[in-house]
Structure formats: C-alpha cells, structure tokens
C-alpha cells in the first residue's frame, strides 16, 4: 500500500490536467458550432420565410404570422406560380420563362466557357508585343458595368438583327462573360509547366490537339468553377434581360419581376414567393452538386498539389 501510493498520486496528477484540457476543448468546439449555427440560421431565415409563405393560403398570410410555420400546407400557390400566374397580360405562370432561361443560359454558359478556355490557353502560349496590355484589357472587361455598355449593345444587337430575341441574349452573355472566363482559364493555365506543352509539340501535336487532348482535360476544376460562375450570373441577370427582350421572350428574372408587379387587386404573396423560390432552385441545385468542386477549383491555383 505504502509502496503503491506514490505511483497512484503521480497518475492522478497527470490525469487531472489532461481531463480539464479535454473538457475545455469540448467547450471551445461547442462555442464554435454554436456561432456557426447562429450565422447559418440568420442566412437561411429569408429562404425559410419565402418557402413558408409560399406554402400558406392567402387567408393565413393576412392573419400576419410571417416567421411561424404554416398551419395548413397548400401547394396551390406553387401550381399557380408554375402555370397560371399573370406575367404582365399573359396569365401563363413562370413555366414558359423557365424554359426560355434554360435555352439562354445553357448555350451562353457553354460558349463563353469554351471560348474563355481557348483564349486563356492562347494567352499563355504566345507572348507577343502588348500581350500584357491585352490581359489588362480583359481584366477591365470583367469590371465594366452593365450600364456602361447598354446603349452601344442595343445598337449592335439591332444592327445584327438579334434585338429582342433569346439568341440576342445568348450572344450578349457569351461576349460579356468572356472577360471572366478568359481570366479564370488564363490564370489556371499559367501555372501549367511549359515543358508539358513542349513535350506535346515534340510528340507532334499542334495547337488544337494540345488544347483538346492535354490542356482541357487538365482544366476540369477551373472548368467547373467557370460553369458555375457563368450559369449563376447569367441565370440571375435582370438588366440585360429586361433591356433586350420583350413579352414572352423574357428570361425568368424579368418574368418574376412582372409577376410581382402586375397583380391587379390583391397582392398574392404566396404565389410571388413560390415563383421566386422556383426561380432560385436551378442555381441552388448547381451549388449543391458542384459546390465542393467550386471550392477545390478556386484553391487549385494557389496550392501546388
């Protein structure tokens, strides 16, 4: 007993600080999570209000509990928003405009991403007199405000015979997006070792062969980033849509605005909210599916792997 006592005491002394430090670690962890959850809830609150309101009847909305959950769920506002809500004078819901937007966003995203990739590759391959100025101009293109090019663009579209049409918007977004897409790809390709291209040239591959067989497959992460970026910004665009389309050619953001602004008599908040949620769903899906690639792609250039 007397022989063992010192050892026991020694063990206890060692155990005590270890236990308290574990406890403190847990408290710290708890604090971090608590703060994160509060912030997440704060950001999600508007979405919650939107979805909750879209699932209520107008009677319930009038009773005025904005934040509480709906008492009686109804999908009628969603159905109305999809196919019956009045967009201006046409009471056809957002369905048609939804399709319009897809027909515009998908080609515009693909075209601007592809040309951006090709541009970015070309800019890293050739150093010509003034190549830095070209790159500076491309950066400038990224930060040119929409409003600045609105009138010249309207003229150009009219001259091309594309005014007021979906192809006109595809053209506009493809061109406007080139600044961003070229910059993304250029910054990615600049980190690709030069020897890789040299090896391919010795192997006999030409400019396009190298691009399609070697550079483009390597650029998957930045391609995902660019597609998400372009899809989101073109989908969310309002100004070009409202400026260069009319009536049933309008994209969803314009239609959404028209729904909210064209209700005569009582304002149907539940239908408005359902339409707004519908308009946001494609972008949310893109982020859920590809969000992790987005973060990876953004990191790819900074950390050499």
């Amino acid at each position, binding site marked *: 007993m007397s022989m063992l006592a010192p050892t026991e005491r020694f063990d206890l002394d060692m155990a005590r600080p270890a236990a308290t430090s574990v406890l403190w670690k847990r408290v710290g962890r708890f604090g971090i999570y608590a703060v994160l959850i509060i912030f997440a809830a704060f950001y999600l609150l508007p979405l919650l209000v939107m979805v909750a309101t879209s699932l209520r009847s107008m009677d319930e909305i009038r009773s005025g509990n904005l934040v509480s959950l709906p008492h009686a769920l109804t999908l009628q506002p969603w159905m109305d928003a999809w196919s019956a809500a009045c967009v201006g004078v046409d009471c056809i819901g957002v369905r048609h405009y939804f399709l319009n937007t897809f027909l515009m966003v998908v080609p515009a995203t693909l075209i601007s991403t592809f040309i951006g990739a090709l541009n970015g590759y070309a800019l890293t391959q050739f150093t010509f007199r003034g190549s830095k100025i070209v790159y500076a101009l491309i950066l400038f293109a990224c930060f040119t405000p929409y409003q600045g090019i609105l009138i010249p663009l309207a003229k150009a579209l009219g001259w091309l015979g594309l005014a007021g049409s979906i192809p006109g918007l595809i053209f506009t977004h493809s061109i406007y997006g080139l600044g961003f897409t070229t910059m993304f790809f250029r910054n990615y390709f600049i980190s690709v*070792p030069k*020897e*890789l291209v*040299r*090896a*391919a*040239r*010795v*192997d*006999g*591959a030409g400019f396009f*062969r190298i691009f399609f*067989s*070697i550079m483009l*497959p*390597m650029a998957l992460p930045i391609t995902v980033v660019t597609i998400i970026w372009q899809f989101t910004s073109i989908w969310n665009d309002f100004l070009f849509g409202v400026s260069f389309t009319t009536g049933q050619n309008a994209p969803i953001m314009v239609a959404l605005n028209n729904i909210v602004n064209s209700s005569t008599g009582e304002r149907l908040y539940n239908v408005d909210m359902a339409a707004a949620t519908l308009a946001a769903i494609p972008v949310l899906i893109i982020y859920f599916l590809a969000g992790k690639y987005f973060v990876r792609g953004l990191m790819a250039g900074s950390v050499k792997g």
Partner: protein
Amino acid sequence: MAELSIQNLGKTFGELEVLKNINLDARHGEFLVLLGPSGCGKSTLLNAIAGLEDITSGRILIDGNTVSGLEPKDRDIAMVFQSYALYPTMSVRKNIEFGMRVRGVAKAERVAAIAKVAEILQIGHLLDRKPGQLSGGQRQRVAMGRALVRSPKIFLFDEPLSNLDAKLRVEMRAEIKKLHQRLGATIVYVTHDQIEAMTLATKVAVMKGGVVQQLGTPDEIYQRPANLYVAGFIGSPPANLMPGRLAQQSGRALVTLEGSNVRFDVGPVTEALRPRIGKEVILGLRPEAIRESSGRAGPGQQTFDADIELIEPTGADTFVSVTIAGRTLTARTTPRARLSLGRQQFLLENDGILVFDPETELLIHASEEAVEEPGEARQLTAI
C-alpha cells in the same frame, strides 16, 4: 544512321547573346553531353536542336538535311524533360501512345511498340496508372519510354536525372548508359553534373557563357583541359590553380610560385613552353596527383613541403587542405594516409601538372611524363 551537325549557330534574346557561334558534331551512336553551369546556354542549345527555340544564325543538320526551320515534329527527334512532363490526365499507356496517335500509327502497331518499350524499361505493371500515382524513378522511366517508343533519329535529354534523389540518380545513370549501349542511338544530353557527363558521354562539350569551351572525349577534357575555366570546372575537387613564373634550368621547365621560392618541375622545355620562359603563367595541380610522401620521389614524381590546415575524411577519399606559398591547395588522398596537422612532405605525380597562359587563359602545357610510360614508372617504383 543519324548524324547531328551544328554549324555556326547563334541565338540572341533581344540584346542578349545566349549562344555564340556554336559548332558541334555528333556521329551516329555518339553520346554527346552538353555540360555547364546553369545559364551557360546548354538547355537553350538543346531546345534549338529540338526546334522548340528559334535560332538567330547558323544551321542545324540531321543526317545532312537542314532542319533549322522545321517544327519539332518534323525533325524526327524525341526528348526527355527535366520535369518528365508526363500528361497528368492520361494513363502511362496513353502517355507513351500519344505521339503515335498524333501521327496516326495503326492500333496493332501501337500496341506492339508499347509492349516492347514496357519490357525494355520494365514498366509493364504501371501502364494503367496515372503519372500522379508513380514515384520519381518510375516517372523517369515512363518519360524515357515515351521517347523510346518512337525510335527517333536523335534522343535529346534535358537534365533528366536532376529531380531524383542521389541513390536513384546513380541507378538511372547506369540504366541510361546500358540503354545507349543496347540501342546504339545518337543522344544529346544536357547536364550540370560532371560525373554524369564523364560516365555517360562519348563526347563532352563544356559550355560557359554561350560558348563551347572545349569539345572532346571525357578523357581529353580531364587530361588536357583547354583553358582555365574547364580546368576549374572538371574534376571533384577541380584543379588547384596558382599564379607563378616560368624558368628554365638545365633543360627542365620550372614554375616558381608567386611571392615565394617554391618551385615545381613541369617537365622538359617544349616548343610551347620555350617562348614563355621568364613570363607569368598559371600552374594547375590536380588534387588526385598530390598525396602524402612515403620517402623519396620516384620517376615522374617530385616532393614538396606544405602545412596541413584541414583534413576531411569522406570514406573513400580524404581531402586535405594544405598551405603552400600563402595559398591553399586541395589534395585528394586515401584514408590510409597517416596525416596530422602541421608541416609534412607531399608527393606530386607529374601527370597532374597543367600550365596555362594567364592572359588568354588557354592551356600551354600538360605534363605527360607518367602517362607516356606508365608501365615503366610503376616498375621502377616497385624496385
């Protein structure tokens, strides 16, 4: 049969002249090493041969045909890069196959060629892996496989071993040498490592500042360095260089070290030495020609006294720093040598003596006394 000939080649980047009037030849089956420190233009020269860099003047001929204006793909060359430059998204098989695909080689032929190369380089088990899953040595093999599979006229290697660790480097060096012996191909190989150059080359071009300082066999470059630069670059450690004055005494040429009366006998007065009697020269002594003295000097040897300052054993060799006439010399001795700090007598083998002109920096004289009759010298020492 593939011969490479470079004639009066020059290259400038704006004002900067990076290659000056380069003339080189590599006959069929020759292993030409371009050796020099970084920035000497050796990689630029290799890229010019490959067609990856334009040249400003001169010509490059492969088998007698001018290729200077041709694209890399039309020169029938293959290249192994320092970073291996494997296509990261393709499997090893696709990497090796890429060049053949681009050229439209039939599938059956491609499969056969890959199988053959995989066997030569023992990379059969790696064919379906991606480059990212390979070790450095394996990547190196794949990079060589990609060059080998095309059976080009000339192979170009750009510092292929410098990214490997020391042990692997020695292994791969031996493999490249075996490969060269087996294929008998013409190879141009760039390196800054003189051991690589000496072990691999049949011909070495020592370069500095865009100029070929010396072109010769490894033996020639070591035994008769053309100038002070080559003497100070080749050998590890390189030759000890000291200023002195040439004198004549009973038919022998002697160099007196500057600021002292220490004299070295550099051999009989030759035609090259005669006009320089009484003038300043630079004396070069090979570290491996200096060792501890075990008594009297034999034929082809002489002795001198010096102070040992530092003894550095490395296992196989022991490097000794000695002071003579106010200058430090390095000697390369065996670990068996019984050495201690302080004054000691040293033995100098005459075949390790070089004499240079201090103004032109060119070699005037390399003593060959012991080289001419090595058998006799050894016999006499034994008696």
